[in-house]
């Protein structure tokens, strides 16, 4: 196990820079998730960490060693690929033992370590099968087994669950987290799925267009997003944004589209008339007599909760209720955001106020 330091790393393909100076400290044993939309550079960063892409500038160190010019095989890392990259002509046991075989380990040691990893992942009955004969989830576990057998300093996961169906994805999520709690190996995990990031990470790194937007624990990112991008990316359904102005007239309020008034707990100093973006999570709406006028458009019950799409000041917002209101499209209701947990962003810069 090792810590990992990524310091001011840049990556260009030709003249096109895809990573613009990324610094991420990763502590020993931490489970770090790099999350962001397609093309944000998260997979490139992971591949640079693995040594599959070279580093244009900046340094990456694993433990105390700068690995910029270290061959992938000497970095002591193991990677789980999106398509698993299992060797199709080898059995499960051979796949898992391949790295040990290349290191000239004895056959006793190989079979001992393969057996141990197979037990951890419940792969023992499948050891003689070929990858073709396995289901998606089983292949996924073999790919993890191949990583475990090596007992590396760092595990790298490159969107490992995106080829699985929804139900299996949830199950494997738990399995990977449990595995990490058991082995406590430093893990860097790349995904575009913020739910995966929220549920698994010790620390989330939100990336966008080649920069780090914010890093922190899942709840830090949820409670205090530093900018509008992170606010919109973390949380499902996504946060509602309304454009408008702050009005300080005795009490601070937010004046939104078409004169809609929404409550503020306090206004930032000297901000009267400032154009801002008012962010409120769907789960932070309540039905209250002093709320804003809203007209219900669509009601989507999911059983445990109900998602309600409504028009507030002409803008569509979504609210989530755990209690079972009887709503119908066209109903007029009063929606009130909880002023304690609303978010204000500078309209020009998108930064949190």
């Amino acid at each position: 196990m090792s810590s990992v330091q990524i310091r001011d790393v840049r990556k260009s393909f030709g003249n096109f820079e895809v990573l613009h100076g990324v610094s991420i400290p990763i502590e020993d044993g931490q489970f770090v998730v790099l999350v962001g939309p397609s093309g944000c550079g998260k997979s490139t960063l992971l591949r640079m960490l693995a040594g599959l892409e070279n580093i244009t500038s900046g340094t990456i160190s694993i433990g105390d060693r700068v690995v910029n010019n270290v061959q992938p095989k000497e970095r002591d890392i193991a990677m789980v690929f999106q398509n698993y990259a299992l060797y199709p002509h080898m059995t499960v046991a051979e796949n898992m033992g391949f790295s040990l075989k290349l290191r000239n380990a004895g056959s006793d040691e190989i079979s001992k370590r393969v057996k141990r990893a197979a037990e951890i992942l419940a792969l023992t009955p499948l050891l003689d099968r070929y990858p073709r004969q396995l289901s998606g989830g089983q292949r996924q576990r073999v790919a993890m087994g191949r990583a475990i057998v090596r007992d590396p300093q760092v595990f790298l996961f490159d969107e490992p669950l995106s080829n699985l169906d929804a139900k299996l994805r949830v199950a494997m999520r738990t399995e990977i987290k449990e595995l990490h709690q058991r082995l406590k190996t430093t893990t860097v995990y790349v995904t575009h799925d913020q739910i995966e990031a929220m549920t698994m990470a010790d620390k989330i790194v939100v990336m966008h267009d080649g920069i780090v937007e914010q890093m922190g624990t899942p709840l830090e990112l949820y409670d205090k997003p530093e900018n509008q991008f992170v606010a919109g990316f973390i949380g499902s359904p996504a946060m509602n944004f309304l454009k408008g102005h702050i009005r300080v007239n005795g009490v601070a309020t937010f004046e939104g589209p078409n004169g809609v008034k929404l409550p503020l707990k306090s206004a930032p100093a000297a901000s009267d008339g400032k154009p801002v973006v008012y962010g409120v999570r769907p789960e932070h709406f309540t039905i209250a007599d002093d709320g804003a006028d809203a007209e219900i458009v669509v009601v989507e019950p999911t059983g445990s909760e109900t998602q309600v799409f409504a028009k507030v000041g002409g803008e569509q917002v979504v609210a989530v209720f755990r209690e079972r209101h009887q709503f119908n499209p066209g109903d007029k209701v009063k929606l009130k955001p909880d002023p304690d947990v609303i978010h204000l962003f500078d309209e020009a810069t998108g930064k949190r106020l």
Partner: protein
Amino acid sequence: MAVIAEPAAAQVKRSSLWSRAFESRNFLGAMFMVPAIAILILFLAYPLVLGLWLGMTDTKIGGVGRFIGFGNFVSLAKDSVFWLSVFNTIFYTVAASIVKFAIGLYLALLLNERLPFKSMIRAIVLLPFVVPTVLSAIAFWWIYDSQFSIISWVLIKAGLITRYIDFLGDPWNARWSVVVANIWRGVPFVAITLLAGLQTISPSLYEAANLDGATNLQRFRHITLPMLSPIIAVVMTFSVLMTFTDFQLIYTITRGGPINATHLMATLSFQRAITGGNLGEGAAISNAMIPFLVAAILLSFFGLQRSRWQQGGRD
């Protein structure tokens, strides 16, 4: 049920045999197979059977043959020229196939890498395949000419030899010369097909092997070669069959000479049957190739058949 079944049965009775036949899956299936079977019979089975029959007769051009059983084979067994042609054919096939495979694999690996002017190099590699065989054979004939050979000329100018090489006049020189011509001709097929095979191997396998600690040589040995083996089997089977039955190159460059040193079974068969007029004997020589070809096919079928890992899952 009975109420519905009765009118249906009555209807069947009324309809003609013809329309009933067209509703039968078996009849329709057979009908659809007729064109394919007709083509196979006309162009494959008939010539093959005719060839087998001719080989058992003493037919001469212009004459009607008599069935003589294995007479032709008995006389061939005592014919030293025939046995020389068998030796030549095996030598030609083995030597050319091994080198074609080696060069073809090397070129395929090269073309699979990122290198500048790749598509141009690929086009150049394909050239020998594009040129008509007879044309390239004439070019080789010229290259091997005893007086105008460019190879001899270059070597003499370089001071490496003092007299022109007699490429086609000496038995072993001639054998190697036609083998080289065949290699030149056959490499593109092997290279391009193996390249296609290489491109189906997922790059992430190499990345995974890289992380697992494999050196370049180990990646080739443990990933490329096993993943490529099914394609190698197919390519080499085809290559062996085509080389074994080669006719054009030999017939254009040496006509089987000198003193039958480059006669293959195919050229000998043509010489005896068409030039010499002994259709029966020529057909017998052709038929003698069949066991070798079947052996080559069986070898690749059993030795290199689809391995277990390629077969579909069972769960």
